[in-house]
Each structure stands twice: as structure tokens, then as C-alpha cells.
């Protein structure tokens, strides 16, 4: 059985499937219970599973994440929601100091099967701190995994993997494309491997690595280009990064462009460029390049259109690199 669903529905289905299969899975966060989530990602779950297994919390990100640490230690698999990625910062102490460290601190004696979900990314004409994409800050933390899907199918499979993972996963959902398109997705539970990138389109001349809501933009850009054979890689897991897929691709194409939403400097693109340098230096025919958000705060809506790399800018950059 399969059904045509969008990304936010895929989140809901993954939660539904796992809560059905595993009664230690609990879901909580602000407005996820009665209301079903501000993006409706948890709609219907409280009716299905009751308010013991999916419930609303006080407005306390740090306690949401910290209590999940405790629940995970005591036999549950909590999946907690941070309403927007811009509100994860009050929980950073928990994430850096505990979530990512429990296994190492106890030499493997205790580990935390928990997921922190948060909608991330810009382009939805929102207020301040509703457009953030600071995945690089979290990818730098040893002991944490950072996953970002870009399709309904991947969202469901990766979220289920994240829930079943014995270790903590930060699961960032590309809210700009939450409802952008639908895809046929199996109704039953299935998993996709965390730590594996996906080749969205094979090509010979240049590799474009991207993730999240930028994937369709890159696809759009590439669809306007006939004369260059572009390979598109959807990274899917930011950390641990699938270096193999990237490096093999660049060994073939000799050229690479990284496209992401976040600010350029010290962003995740820098790591990809470095990996390519370290592993495919002699294959490089042009400088590995980043096309990203600016080193600025995400502008409020009336300036927002300038911030995100557009298909036009992506296409132009691809042409420049190909012509190098």
C-alpha cells in the first residue's frame, strides 16, 4: 500500500507508524498534542495514541530536550519537537553537554535513543528567527547526528531510522517545501540509512551537492541547462557526512558546487570543500565553490527574496564552474 503525501504528512506518518509499532516511542513539544503542531506535523496522533504518549509541554526548550534525555535513559524513545529551529538555542546546553555526550561519558553504558525534530530554513516570509539554518553549528558536535530530508519518501524513511537509532538524531525538516509536492510513499514503516547521500541525477561534468529545500531549486536550475551534464547529490545527512558519494562523484566530474541556505562562512559547505580537497585534489579541474546564503542575518520578508540562492543564480554558477 502506498499513498501520495507531502513532507509534513510524511513526518506525521513516520510518527504514526513508529508509535504503532513501538510503545516506547513518545512524542512531545509545544502545541504538538491538542493542536497537532503549528505545522500540523502531529495532527491526529493524540486522538490515536492518547495524551500519555503525545502531549503538550510548557514553553521550555531546555526542559523539553533535557527531559527527553531522562526518558531515553529510562527506557523510552522520545521524539521531541522544537517549534522552529530558531528556538533551539535555549536547548543548546542540553544538546552539547548531554545529548551528544551520554554514551561517551559512560563508556557506552548509557545511550540516548532520542530524536529532536525542528522545522528549519527560510523563504516562508516569516518573522525573525523563523528562517534559520544553522545545521553547521550542530554538525560540529561530536556524538550527534544531523539529518535533513528533502522529499516525502526520504523524510519518512529517515525519520523512522532516526527514531530507531540507538543514538540521538537532530532531524531538521525543510519547512519551505513542507507542502510543495507529493510523492508516492509506502504506508507501512520502512527505513533509509542515515549517513548516506543520494544521487538525485547522474551527470558527468559537474557535481552539485545540496540538501533540504535547496534540492528542488537546484533541480530547477539544472533543468534549464542542456549543454552541461550535472550530477546532483542530495546530502540528506549532514553529519556524519557521506564523503564517499561526494568524492566518487567529484573524481568523475572534476568540478563541484555546494549550495546551501545557511551563511557562507563556517557553513557546512566549507566541510564539503575540505573533504573534496583532502580526497579528490588531483581530480579537481576547477575550484570547489560554494553558493550559499550571505554572511548576514536572514532578512525579514521584504528583503528575503535576495537571500536564498535562486535557480538563476545556481544555473549561472554551474555555467561559470563548467567554463573554468
Amino acid at each position, binding site marked *: 500500500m502506498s499513498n501520495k503525501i507531502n513532507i509534513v504528512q510524511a513526518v506525521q506518518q513516520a510518527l504514526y507508524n513508529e508509535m504503532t509499532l513501538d510503545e516506547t516511542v513518545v512524542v512531545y513539544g509545544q502545541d504538538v498534542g491538542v*493542536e497537532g503542531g503549528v505545522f500540523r506535523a502531529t495532527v491526529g496522533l493524540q486522538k490515536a495514541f492518547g495524551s500519555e504518549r503525545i502531549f503538550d509541554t*510548557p*514553553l521550555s526548550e531546555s*526542559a523539553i530536550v533535557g527531559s527527553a534525555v531522562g526518558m531515553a535513559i529510562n527506557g523510552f524513545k522520545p521524539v521531541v519537537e522544537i517549534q522552529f529551529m530558531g528556538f533551539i538555542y535555549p536547548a543548546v546546553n542540553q544538546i552539547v553537554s548531554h545529548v551528544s555526550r551520554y554514551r561517551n561519558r559512560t563508556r557506552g553504558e548509557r545511550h540516548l535513543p532520542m530524536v529532536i525534530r525542528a522545522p528549519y530554513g527560510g523563504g516562508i516570509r516569516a518573522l525573525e528567527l523563523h528562517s534559520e539554518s544553522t545545521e553547521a553549528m550542530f554538525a560540529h558536535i561530536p556524538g550527534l547526528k544531523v539529518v535533513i530530508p528533502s522529499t516525502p519518501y526520504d523524510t519518512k524513511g529517515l525519520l523512522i531510522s532516526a527514531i530507531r537509532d540507538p543514538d540521538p538524531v537532530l532531524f531538521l525538516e525543510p519547512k519551505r517545501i513542507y507542502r510543495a509536492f507529493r510523492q508516492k510513499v509506502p504506508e507501512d514503516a520502512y527505513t533509509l540509512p542515515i549517513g548516506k547521500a543520494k544521487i538525485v541525477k547522474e551527470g558527468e561534468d559537474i557535481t552539485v551537492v545540496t540538501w533540504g529545500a535547496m534540492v528542488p531549486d537546484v533541480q530547477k536550475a539544472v533543468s534549464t541547462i542542456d549543454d552541461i551534464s550535472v550530477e546532483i547529490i542530495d546530502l540528506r545527512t549532514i553529519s556524519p557526512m557521506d564523503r564517499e558519494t561526494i568524492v566518487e562523484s567529484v573524481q568523475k566530474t572534476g568540478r563541484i558546487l555546494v549550495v546551501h541556505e545557511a551563511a557562507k562562512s563556517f557553513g557546512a559547505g566549507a566541510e564539503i570543500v575540505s573533504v573534496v580537497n583532502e580526497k579528490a585534489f588531483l581530480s579537481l579541474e576547477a575550484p570547489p565553490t560554494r553558493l550559499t546564503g550571505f554572511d548576514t542575518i536572514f532578512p*525579514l520578508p521584504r528583503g528575503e527574496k535576495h537571500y536564498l540562492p535562486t535557480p538563476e543564480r545556481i544555473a549561472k554558477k554551474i555555467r561559470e564552474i563548467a567554463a573554468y
Partner: protein
Amino acid sequence: MLIEQFNPLEDKMIQVMDENGEIVNADLMPDLKSEEILELYKTMLKARTIDSAALSLQRQGRLLTYAPNLGQEAAQVGSGYALKKTDWAVSAFRELGMWLIKGWTIEKIFQYWYGSEWGSHFGEEIRLLPISVPISSQLSHAVGIAMAAKFRGESDAVIAYTGDGGTSQGEFHEALNFAAVYKTPNVFFIQNNQFAISIPSSKQTASKNLAVKALAYGMPGIKVDGNDVFAVLAVTRAALEYAIKEGPVLIEAYTFRMGAHTTSDDPSKYRTDEEVEPWKKRDPMLRLEKYLLQNDLLKEADIEHLKTSFQEEAMAAYQSIEHTSDTEIEEIFSHHYAEMTPQLEEQLADYLAFVERSQR
């Protein structure tokens, strides 16, 4: 006196004027001239009119997200009115009535909700901080401002706002504790509008009320009828005075969010009409109108007249900014540091070159 005497553990709240516009506690009735009372009323009406204008503009797609204030006008205007010009106010995000008093213009307010940073550029001389999106993170700013004022020996106070949801944040706790330790001239003003998006106050905390939280910091906590503008004004005035002399005070203004959380929210998902119904009778405007009519300070006809003129003012303000251009590209880059970094300069130049080429 008022401040020290109140015991939040008794779980009562201070009221001066009841739902019928009767003064039920004359001792606490602030000493106001007729014009002042009218001014309170007009500001509340103005806030309500702008609020409803903003909502309809938003529905027409002419504003973006907007956080409505309906039902909270007395809490906002009563507390704002207690401030002298040199007192500071630190915003959360739902304080329209107070903003108007502090001098944030309607134009600028609309500009903010229309998605421009220029909305928060409202004049350094206006002692108001812009909207703070992360809940309760603004409260420690208020403490710092008060520390500075106190160190300089000034006698200005600082009022800072948050919501019932805001009381659950760790930053609420840290700020209040700091203020109490340094005995800074701070007033922390909670608009308890019973909801944090869909979460009712009863699920936000198990404490008797929110004022009682003050006891954790050794500061006075007072609960006031937030729909009674006279009570809010009286309590806030007393609190500001106390704050300057003795140290911080926590005020819980008990009110109700009659509308949606923001224009993206649908309250029918989490509350029933029956829950809202009783609050209609407690409407802060209605109550003050009754008082004014009973005391011959206002005629029915004036109300309509005032509404119309505020509506016109709101629309004129909106129109003056509706056709302002989108944010200039340079502005996105130029306000991060006193001087742009080489990185920003380069990124700006690259982007400008791209835009120019693509416009050719």
C-alpha cells in the same frame, strides 16, 4: 504600600472597576483628570482600531503575520500609561497599546508587521526596545538597562513584558533573580492571557497564579485584573515607584486573548466558544465605556466618531508605507557591524553584479 501588602498566595486579584464600569475600590482609583481618563480610553480604542485594521489588512495580504491584541488593551495601555517618558519599556511582541504610548508610530508598527527591519528603527530617544521573538529572552535586557540606570544614579525604571507562556522559560527565572539580587528598578509585567498558542495556563504551570512566582526571588508579586485599566494603571504606578526605591516587582495582569495567537493560528482547534464567552462580558473597552458614559465623560456618538478617525489614521499610516519599496540590497549587508567586513563587501558586490547583469 499596595505593593508590600499584597499577598499572592491568597490568590486574589486587584480590581478597581468592575465589569459594569462601577468603581469598586475607590481607595486604589488612580488620581486622574477627566482628560487623562479620556486619553486612556482613546489610546485603548486606538489600539483596538489599529488591531482590527491590521487584521483585515493581513487578510487582504497587505500585512504578513500579525499578532492580535483584542481584549488585552487595558493591560497594555494601563501599564504603558504609568511610565514617564524617561522610563524604559522592553517589549515581548503583543503590546500594541503600550507601544503607542511610548511613541512607536503606527507607520513603523505596520512596517514591522509588513516584514521590514525599518519598523524597528524608531528613534533612539524612544526608550522602547523592539519586539523580541524568543520568548522571555528580553527580560535580562531590561535588567541590564536598569542596572545601568541605577549605577548612574538615575531615577528611571524599566518595565518588561512577557506572557503566561513566558514564565516557563529559564530566562524568565534568571532575569528575575538577577534583578532581585541587584535590587534594580525593574517591573516585570506578565500579560496572562490564558494561552500560549494552544497551551492553556493550567498546563503551563502548577502554581496558584503567576504573581506567586515572585516569592522565589524575594520580590513582591501582584495580580491585577488585566481588563481593568484603572487597576492596571494603579498597580503599575505603584510598582514603578517601588522598583526605583526598593527593587523589582512582578505583576500578573489577568486577561484573555480574545483572538487568534497570530494570523497563522486557528483557535477553534484547541478551545471552545464557551471558554471565550464569559470573557466577552469582561471586555476592557466595554467596561471603560460604561464608566465614561455613566460619568458623562463621553457620549455614544463620540465613540463612533473616534473609531472612524482612528480607522482613518490607521489606513493613512498603512498607505504611507504600503508602497515603500522592498528592502534595498545594500541594507541587508550594511547593518551587521559598524564597518562591513571584507566578506560582506565581497558578497554584496557579487550579488549586485549578478542583479545588474540579469536586469540587462
